[in-house]
């Protein structure tokens, strides 16, 4: 037999290179994982043999992920940079995948045409397209592709027992192992076990004469005959799996993944969470779904039986949380660590030969003849066209999915951030990106500066992170309470991790940053806002690391690439032998198992027919339900929900379309009204839940109560609004609400203000800052501080005043001590304090001692999000004394005194009042601090309350705040002995600066209230200015 170049394979390769090669440049950088691999590659390019990386999580080891792909990118980066390396490796991955599928298909079907078809189909296989273009899982792709290449060699070893096949098998397997750890382990089960089964079947067939004659007895006999080879291969691969990435296993043993699992879409119930169903089921399966009966029928034939079983299990595991079966099979632990989409990927790859076979039979084989006889050639062509059309459409749709539903923020130009970090020793502190998506890895790859965050969650080390299902702090708002909870701890106690700079690409986080004591530094050219926290100490010069023995470092650095070189050498030799020498006509053993395709079996055909019909009906039904659920104006409650939804997504045009057209409100007027509304609720909130309650209803009008839950970084807002809806021509509309007609008194007014500027370094030098350029820390005096017990919670409340002449930025760190002076807990003041104080301004404060939430693994985190959720720390003993370390630094920004309290009434446990803004800044988020005093006018509690609406200049906003927390409070300790200001005793400051404090000039005006637990309250206001003018 003269061998010819397989034109189908060439076509597949050309198509693959064209299609994927052209599109990865637009997709790969916005995938979930690609940039993470790039970051790892950057690590290897900098320090090939040193596994410790300081950039993320206060340091972690890269031995947590097999290194081959990263090291290859690193190696290529020396030629053309990191991204060149990444794209090159991706293209190599595409070639390996297509050829791998070809060889695998040839192995299974022994038909070059079928294998060629399979290779072409592999190019557009939607699961492969998704893995590459949406998920960016390069190691996984390389791993599975090389495994596919290894399968024919393994088959040949098992059949022939020739040593050279064992060598090639092991060489390729080693490459798989060093590129991805999960692939060979599960590949053993799902690819190699069925392959062994097929080998035995083939051997049995040869013994018995035909497949039909194969009995279990013959099969068993063959098993024992091949047992030695199987065992040799099995043991060898076990040694390889352990040996090639030994440091990985050592690391896994030393640092077991003891983290709260991070939710992953592939574990969802696809019927409930339809978006996960789309991404992890519909897209990867694509057209294959329609062919299930044929695929199963073929795979459950005698020869492929074991592949059939493997395929069935993979398919089942890929359904995630839809049924409880995958959970039962994998067990709780594996289920929560593995991402189950890979099973679907493998299932769709394992079936490709059969899919290729179908395509061949449909377009060129017996099915074509059968159909043309049955339907006529036109119908056959139309149906073929349809199948190909849908198949290509799904592939194209998948590639461009990132464009339609961006999973990542817009591409950020990192250069200004990198430059900022390089300037003026900014990289001596840690930074934190917010709202960067997976691009944070790209930033990390470009800078020496370190972050507390990271993007490889298996390596998370800080308890604040591992105790919660937080993938990254950076996108914590998507992780609800746990995310924001984790973030808040870092923001409140930044000195613990030397965290000084935050790059915010999402203004959602801005309020929590401001109220935790951070301030804006500058906006970079790329629009990223830099936030800074004053008074954080720089990182020490020497940072701790987990060292590993030298032999592990050498293994890790040398083995992976050696496996590639070895595999290449071996295979080149084989190719040399096969192609060039041509001394022996070589033909692989498996090629003798070619099957003849005679005529499709009727019942399979009809089952397929019905199956396609059923699928069509299901799709139609799904579409119809979708339509019903999402039709806005079908009922009164639907229109209210749709209206809020539109407001949430800032789709005001859509929101206006729900407004009663008879109300006379013009679109311009509506848009104008929307544009002047600002504040926590309209600019920083995300709608979490909405339900409606009918108050009154008849055929044409209804009064509904819309109960909404909004998530903001500061608190959850539960609002209730009464909305009138009206039915006009079978569509429901919302009656617009009256707007505030109040007009401010002055058209133009002026205001004088003292503003401040700090030069920082006055000389342009990279040397140490000159002594005279260092500002004096403002002097703050703590006037009172008390340790308060309420139920089992301990808090410290008090009053402090900036008694200096310059504005102060105040941070308080409190420590609780037990009777024997052992430290019980330490925490900083979060948002219950005014951090930025004018000269002589005072503020009441409360410090809560927050524990690390759900650090107990059994405790289930709540499913709903509540940023105010507070995990109080569990103390071993009752605290007796406390220590306050107040650090004050000069504040020059975020000082605003324009908010006035215009009036207030206390009734039925609420304080109602009006805020008036007399200044020229828009007070975006007003904060009202309410202090509670006992009958002796001792401060016992302080609460922080945020007002949902902003207060524009010369306008007023009313507020209604519940007077809360009626638990009795006992004062445990009021001593100021252990209070220190900038390291100096508070007592000395009192004696020196204000020795004769006028006690008759009170700090606060107290308002008497009737309550059994407190007798007076006082109010203080603070505000976050979203857009300073």
């Amino acid at each position: 037999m003269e061998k010819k170049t397989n034109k189908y394979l060439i076509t597949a390769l050309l198509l693959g290179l064209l299609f994927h090669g052209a599109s990865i440049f637009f997709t790969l950088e916005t995938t979930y994982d690609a940039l993470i691999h790039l970051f790892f590659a950057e690590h290897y390019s900098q320090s090939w043999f040193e596994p410790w990386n300081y950039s993320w999580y206060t340091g972690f080891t890269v031995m947590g992920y097999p290194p081959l792909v990263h090291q290859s990118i690193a190696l290529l980066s020396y030629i053309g940079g990191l991204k060149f390396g990444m794209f090159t490796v991706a293209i190599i991955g595409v070639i390996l995948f297509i050829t791998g599928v070809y060889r695998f298909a040839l192995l299974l079907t022994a038909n070059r045409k079928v294998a060629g078809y399979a290779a072409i189909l592999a190019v557009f296989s939607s699961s492969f397209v998704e893995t590459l273009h949406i998920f960016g899982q390069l190691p996984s792709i390389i791993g599975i592709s090389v495994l596919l290449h290894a399968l024919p060699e393994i088959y040949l070893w098992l059949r022939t027992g020739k040593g050279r096949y064992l060598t090639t098998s092991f060489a390729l397997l080693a490459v798989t192992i060093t590129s991805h750890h999960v692939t060979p382990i599960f590949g053993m089960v799902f690819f190699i076990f069925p392959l062994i089964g097929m080998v035995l079947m083939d051997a049995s067939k040869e013994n018995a004469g035909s497949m039909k004659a194969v009995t279990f007895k013959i099969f068993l006999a063959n098993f024992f005959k091949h047992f030695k080879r199987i065992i040799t291969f099995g043991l060898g691969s076990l040694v390889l799996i352990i040996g090639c990435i030994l440091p990985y296993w050592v690391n896994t043993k030393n640092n077991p993944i003891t983290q709260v699992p991070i939710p992953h879409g592939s574990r969802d119930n696809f019927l409930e969470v339809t978006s996960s169903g789309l991404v992890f089921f519909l897209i990867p399966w694509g057209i294959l779904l329609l062919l299930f009966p044929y695929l199963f029928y073929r795979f459950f034939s005698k020869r492929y039986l074991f592949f059939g079983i493997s395929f069935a299990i993979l398919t089942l595991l890929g359904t995630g949380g839809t049924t409880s079966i995958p959970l039962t099979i994998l067990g709780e632990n594996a289920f929560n660590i593995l991402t189950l989409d890979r099973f679907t990927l493998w299932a769709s790859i394992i079936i490709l030969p059969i899919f290729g076979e179908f395509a061949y039979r449909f377009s060129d084989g017996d099915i074509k003849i059968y159909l043309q006889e049955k339907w006529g050639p036109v119908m056959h062509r139309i149906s073929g066209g349809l199948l190909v059309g849908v198949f290509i459409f799904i592939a194209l749709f998948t590639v461009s999915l990132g464009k339609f539903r961006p999973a990542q923020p817009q591409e950020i130009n990192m250069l200004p951030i990198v430059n900022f970090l390089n300037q003026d020793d900014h990289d001596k502190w840690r930074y934190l990106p917010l709202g960067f998506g997976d691009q944070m890895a790209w930033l990390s790859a470009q800078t020496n500066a370190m972050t507390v965050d990271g993007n490889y969650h298996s390596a998370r080390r800080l308890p604040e992170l591992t105790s919660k299902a937080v993938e990254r702090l950076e996108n914590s708002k998507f992780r609800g309470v746990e995310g924001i909870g984790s973030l808040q701890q870092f923001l409140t106690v930044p000195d613990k991790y030397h965290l000084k700079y935050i790059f915010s690409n999402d203004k959602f986080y801005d309020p929590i940053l401001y109220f935790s004591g951070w301030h804006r530094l500058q906006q970079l050219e790329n629009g990223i806002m830099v936030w800074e926290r004053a008074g954080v100490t720089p990182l020490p010069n020497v940072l701790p690391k987990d060292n590993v023995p030298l032999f592990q470092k050498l293994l890790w650095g040398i083995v992976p690439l050696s496996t590639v070189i070895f595999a290449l050498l071996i295979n080149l030799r084989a190719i040399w032998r096969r192609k060039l020498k041509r001394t022996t006509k070589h033909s692989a053993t498996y090629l003798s198992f070619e099957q003849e395709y005679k005529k499709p079996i009727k019942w399979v055909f009809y089952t397929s027919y019905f199956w396609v019909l059923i699928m069509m009906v299901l799709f139609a039904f799904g579409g119809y339900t979708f339509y019903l659920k999402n039709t806005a104006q079908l009922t009164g409650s639907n229109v209210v929900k749709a209206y809020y939804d539109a407001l949430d997504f800032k789709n005001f045009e859509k929101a206006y379309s729900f407004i009663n057209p008879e109300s006379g409100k013009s679109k311009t007027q509506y848009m104008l009204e929307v544009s002047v509304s600002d504040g926590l609720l309209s600019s920083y909130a995300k709608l979490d839940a909405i339900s409606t309650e009918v108050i009154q209803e008849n055929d044409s009008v209804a009064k509904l109560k819309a109960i909404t839950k909004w998530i903001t970084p500061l608190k959850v807002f539960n609002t209730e609004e009464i909305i009138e809806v009206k039915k006009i021509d079978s569509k429901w509309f919302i009656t617009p609400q009256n707007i505030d007609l109040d007009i401010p008194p002055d058209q133009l007014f002026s205001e004088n203000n003292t503003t401040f500027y700090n030069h920082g370094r006055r000389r342009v030098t990279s040397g140490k800052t000159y002594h005279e350029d260092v500002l004096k820390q403002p002097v703050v005096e703590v006037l009172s501080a008390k340790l308060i017990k309420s139920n089992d919670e301990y808090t410290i409340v008090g009053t402090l005043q900036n008694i200096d002449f310059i504005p102060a930025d105040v941070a308080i760190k409190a420590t609780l001590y037990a009777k024997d002076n052992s430290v019980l807990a330490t925490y900083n003041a979060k948002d219950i304090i005014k951090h930025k104080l004018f000269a002589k301004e005072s503020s009441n404060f409360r410090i809560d001692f927050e524990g690390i939430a759900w650090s107990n693994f059994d405790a289930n985190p709540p499913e709903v999000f509540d940023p105010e959720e507070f995990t109080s720390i569990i103390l071993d003993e009752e605290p007796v004394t406390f220590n306050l370390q107040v650090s004050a630094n000069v504040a020059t920004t975020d000082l605003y005194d324009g908010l006035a309290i215009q009036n207030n009434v206390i009734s039925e446990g609420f304080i109602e009042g009006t805020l008036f803004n007399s200044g020229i800044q828009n007070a975006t988020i007003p904060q009202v601090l309410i202090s509670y005093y006992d009958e002796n006018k001792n401060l016992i509690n302080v609460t922080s309350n945020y007002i949902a609406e902003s207060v524009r200049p010369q306008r007023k906003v009313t507020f209604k705040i519940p007077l809360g927390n009626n638990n009795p409070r006992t004062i445990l300790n009021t001593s100021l002995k252990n209070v220190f200001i900038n390291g100096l005793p508070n007592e000395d400051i009192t004696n020196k600066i204000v020795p004769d404090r006028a006690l008759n000039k009170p700090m606060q005006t107290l308002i008497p209230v009737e309550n059994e637990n407190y007798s007076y309250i006082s109010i203080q206001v603070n505000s976050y200015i979203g857009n300073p003018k």
Partner: protein
Amino acid sequence: MKKAFKHIWLILPLFIICIGFNTIQNNLMQQDSDGLTGKIIEDRSRYNAGDTIILSATIEDTNTTNLTEAFLQLSTSYGIITLFKDSNKEAINFTLPHFISKKSGWIQWDFIVAGNKLDSGSFEIRPSTAINKIAETYVGPPSIIAGGKDFTMLVTIPTDIYDNLLIDETPVTINEQRGTSTETFPLKINKRIAWKRIFSPEKKGRIFATALLENSASRELNIDVFANQPKDFVISYERPHPFADGNQILTLSTSILRDAYNNIITDGTLVQFTGVDSNGQILRTSATTINGTATAKLLYPDAPTTLKIKATIPGLADSQEIAIAFTSILKEFELQFSENNRTITVGPLKSYLGQLIPDGAVVELFINGKQEINQISSKDGFASFSISEDFYPDATYDVTITALGITKNFKKTIH
């Protein structure tokens, strides 16, 4: 007690071993010293930093001794250093390297030949007198409070050109400029530094200072003197008219805030204004000072009242209380009903000149004591409520309407 003895068993052998080694070493040292004598010809016991220091030695019995084994062991402030003899064949000279000879301090030496300590001694290197400079001068804190109680400290550390601290009693001069007067203070170095406390004057401003040495000077040093704590002050108010229309700005200002020495308080000092109206409701506003005066603003009340306002700098100073009365802008308002009484129009709401009141006055409607319809704001002097028949069937209702402090209550049949 038993435990303590256990430790002795551990320590005792160690102790014995130590003594043993020491003795052996001493014996070894003295072993060959018979007949070998030598000494350093020391000409000076005091050098200046930067001098070339050469120590010469003589050894008797040079024939039998290999001179390469002669060395000088120096104990300096940098640690112990071994010096071998200079390459000159004839004489046995030891030249101290420059990095040692430029550093002030005491140096102890041992002259050792072939393991025998033949001579020992010490000398002092004093700071160079050639050129002196002022290496570091600090003043801190950089700002102080006027009044003479608060002080800052100027510390100067003069050195020679080799960065050696100068010896005590070296004269240093500190010059101070306060306003137009210049003062000179002669100081002497004490414990290697010179320092002076600079007490604040009564006037706020800036003090300039410098430290001078015989032939060098420090940088210019600045000390800011801020005003002391404020004294009590008076406040006044300004308003466009006395009517409680809820739509004008009441401006409150302080007199110029000064401290006990008549200095104007630093700009940016916060003054709080707290008011109480006739109903006991609290009003609060604040402002920062500019040139000693703080000007705060409040919105007019929308019902007749008297505001009692007082300003404070908490715990430090306050003002007198002022009372500001606001009178009502209207005594009565009219109501108009539609034919079926389903629309109630309030107005025209007229103000003190008979003009229509500015938009935004709050009008509230209560039906049967419940505020079923949200409060609305007036527009062009009118506010109109429509009572929907979908929610209020025909019946007689108890209706209350409130506007600008005036309330009307009546029963109305809606049909």
